Structure formats: C-alpha cells, structure tokens
C-alpha cells in the first residue's frame, strides 16, 4: 500500500506516498456508483508506513503490527486520481512497541487524522526474509534504484 517513502528520520517520523487509482479492485464495490478509497485501507497504508519506520529504526530487526488504536477521523473523501501523502510521527518507543500519530494529506488538504495508535514489534525472521525486506525498503526510499533503470 506504500509506493514511495519520500523521507524518514529514524525513530521520529516518515513521509510516504500512495497513489489511488481506478483500477484497484476494492473500488469496484466501494461504492458501485461512487468510487472512494475505503477508510480502513488508508489505515492499512498508515500502518505499513509506520511498520517500515519501525523496521529502519530497529536496525532492520523487527517490523510492527497494529496493537492499539486511538481515534481515526476521516474528514473528507479520498478519490481516484488523488496522491495520498502519509505522515507518521513516533511519540514514544520502548522495548515492546511504539506509539505514533499520523495524518493523510492530498495536496496540503488534511483528509484523515489518526490521533494515536500503537504497534507491537514482531521479529522480522518470523514474517519475511530479512535481506529481501531490507532490499525492498531501499527500493521504496530510492536509495537503491529499481533494477537496471536509473531515472
């Protein structure tokens, strides 16, 4: 659900981007005559970005899964053709997990606000191949170009 990570500061914050497009499957039923990005999908995008930030903050040893959710407000619709800019801010990190807040913007308009949520660490070996995940993270941030093509 994350296309690019535009910037990140270990243990502090990250900004990522996700494009919303008509060809995505969930827009077929949500809603038949009125395509809008489902709110929980936005939450999933936020969670994935936060999880990548956990991954880099913990020296590529753990990722995070959602453990607690405060309040999430969906202020306006996100429609196909919009470029979502997702901002995640870590509030506190401890040995068990991390508490963060986040917001989703489209062209400087705030669409969704997540007041607080908590991720629980999962060791990376349990869910993914550590090296592959690390390489994938570098693709997302642009530290390593996608394959042979260099823009």
């Amino acid at each position, binding site marked *: *659900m*994350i*296309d*690019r990570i535009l910037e990140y500061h270990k243990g502090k914050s990250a900004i990522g*981007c*996700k*494009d*919303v*497009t*008509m*060809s*995505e*499957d969930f*827009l*077929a039923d949500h809603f038949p*005559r009125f*395509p809008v990005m489902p709110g929980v999908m936005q939450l999933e995008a936020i969670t994935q970005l936060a999880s990548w930030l956990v991954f880099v903050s913990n020296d590529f040893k753990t990722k995070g899964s959602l453990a607690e959710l405060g309040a999430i407000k969906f202020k306006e619709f996100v*429609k*196909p*053709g*919009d*470029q979502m800019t997702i901002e995640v801010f870590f509030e506190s990190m401890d040995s068990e997990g991390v508490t963060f807040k986040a917001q989703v913007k489209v062209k400087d308009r705030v669409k969704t606000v997540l007041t607080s949520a908590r991720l629980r660490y999962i060791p990376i070996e349990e869910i993914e191949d550590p090296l592959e995940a690390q390489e994938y993270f570098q693709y997302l941030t642009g530290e390593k170009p*996608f*394959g*042979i*093509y260099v*823009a």
Partner: protein
Amino acid sequence: MRFYLFDKVIQFVPGQSGVGVKNITLAEDFFIKHYDRTPLMPEPLVIEALAQMGGWTIALSTQWRYVAILLRIDKVRFYKPVRPGDQLILKVEILSINDNGSLIEGRAEVNGQVVAQAERIMYGNNPVPDHLKDFIKKSYIYVSGGFLDREGNVITP
C-alpha cells in the same frame, strides 16, 4: 485488475482537447510479473491509458452520440519507464471528428517530462442507440470522476 486506465479528467475543451490523470500504484496487478524485481508499467498500457482518455474526450465532445473504438495507432515513442508512485498526466488533442471516425494526438507526462507520445490515434465512431445513451453517459461520468449538475451537464472538479 480493473481495466480503468485513467482516474479523473482535470481539463476539457469540447471538440479540442482533454487532460486526464492516471495514478500508478505498486498495488496494481500488472506489477506482479512485470517485472519480478523491477516494477515498471507495461508500455502498451500507457497507450491504452491515452486511448481511453481520447475515447472519453470524443464521447463527451459529441454528447455521447458515439462510442470510440480503437482502430489504429501511429508513431509511438516511449521516452522513459513509468514507475510506481508516478502520476501520469494524459494530454490528448483532437485533430478531427466526423461520423465515421476520429483522430487524436496523445502525450503522457510525468512531472512535466514526456514519457510517451503517440502522433496519431485513430478511432472508429460507433453510433450509440438511444436507449443506451444514459448508460454510456453514466459509465463515462463514473470513470472520469465527474458528476452532473441539475441541468444534466457534467462538472469535472
């Protein structure tokens, strides 16, 4: 995947030109095998995006009298690969429309740089029977992100 290759229309001059947007996200199905380690948008789909945008522009210019069906594409150049996170701006210009067919020119840009250009795209214009006009209109409004005002005119944001 769903075969909608443009997301919304941002500019439209009847009978002349149209500008649309297509967002490319990593979640799209064609990135799964295209390619294993380097996600790139398949070039034919860039053309299809231009062609869909052109078809929409023709349909709206003719007040849904015709459905445009792709017949021929001339002189296409691909300058740069299109990658996830890019926002494709599809610019089409109508060269001619008549009862049999239409001719458009298309250009796809990312961040102001041209990534693909088609000098001529030719469509056959199929007349729409009256009882289907409403359906065609609704589906075009659905794909273009537009909506109708009280008089039944399309407003695009």
